[in-house]
């Protein structure tokens, strides 16, 4: 089996497993109304779109897998929870954490080194003595760091919505549970996914580091401003 095709199969399978645990199980256990079911169908459709785009447009597929699909899943989970957020016991949290970590790792694996396919004409030329570039020396460190961050986030996020854990939170945390969960969870989750991929991508990239990009620096500063605003609002919601 060609290992290059493995992420294209693993990622939608693991994404479907995340969808079952984080969307389908709460929906079935709670007799949710129509809106959460529609959001669940939307997130499943986004996962399928990501799988379809993974062959021709890997970057578009990454945006769907790592950006839009987690956001829609978070929206579905929040809509299904209503006034009573879902609680996961310790084994359940471990299973969810492992599934989310595996999904993120498979998405990163499928994205690293891939490029959009464009039509090209191959012209015969002299044989080159230069072989493929070696893998980056910190690839193992990058994979371990990626899995550790994803596990940490996947465990902290369910703890954040757990009613049992709210006694350890400040009033800012209680405000989180009272109904502003949707905005902070969606924003925090998108930041978490972006953080994980950019941090891991730097270590997993085969090519040399890119040149300075002012646009990228502005993007980081805008993201920092958004994160600061979210923290300021949360801390002053007490």
């Amino acid at each position, binding site marked *: 089996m060609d290992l290059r095709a493995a992420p294209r199969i693993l990622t939608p399978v693991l994404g479907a497993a995340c969808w079952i645990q984080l969307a389908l199980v709460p929906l079935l256990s709670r007799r949710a109304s129509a809106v959460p079911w529609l959001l669940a169908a939307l997130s499943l459709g986004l996962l399928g779109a990501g799988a379809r785009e993974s062959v021709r447009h890997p970057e578009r597929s990454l945006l769907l897998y790592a950006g839009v699909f987690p956001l829609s899943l978070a929206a579905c989970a929040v809509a299904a929870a209503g006034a009573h957020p879902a609680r996961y016991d310790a084994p359940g949290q471990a299973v969810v954490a492992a599934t989310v970590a595996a999904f993120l790792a498979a998405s990163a694996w499928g994205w690293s080194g891939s490029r959009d396919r464009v039509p090209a004409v191959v012209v015969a030329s002299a044989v080159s003595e230069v072989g493929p570039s070696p893998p980056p020396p910190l690839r193992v460190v990058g994979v371990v760091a990626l899995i550790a961050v994803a596990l940490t986030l996947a465990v*902290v996020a369910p*703890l*954040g919505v757990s009613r049992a854990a709210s006694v*350890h*939170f*400040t009033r*800012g*945390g209680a405000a*989180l549970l009272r109904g502003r969960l949707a905005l*902070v969870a969606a924003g*925090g989750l998108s*930041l*978490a996914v972006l*953080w994980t991929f*950019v*941090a891991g991508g730097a270590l997993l990239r085969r090519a*040399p*580091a*890119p*040149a*300075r*990009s002012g646009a*990228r*620096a*502005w993007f*980081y*500063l805008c*993201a*920092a401003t958004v*994160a*600061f605003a*979210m*923290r300021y609002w*949360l*801390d002053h919601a007490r």
Partner: protein
Amino acid sequence: MIALKPPALTIAFRWLVRVVGLALMVCALVPYWQALRALDQRDYVSALLAGFVGWFISHAGLELVRPESAE
């Protein structure tokens, strides 16, 4: 072909950008410290968001410190 040297103003501007980048990387220590303090107070979500702020600021600084062209 001899590479042309950029004008002095351009060179000065590039060094200024690098100094700003270095300053951002140093300033990023403040939200990281706040994240550790928030963790100590068991304010997990606030600590996570402070960590994000620190990470984004430090990487904005890192981006500004990079050379003009790829290695």
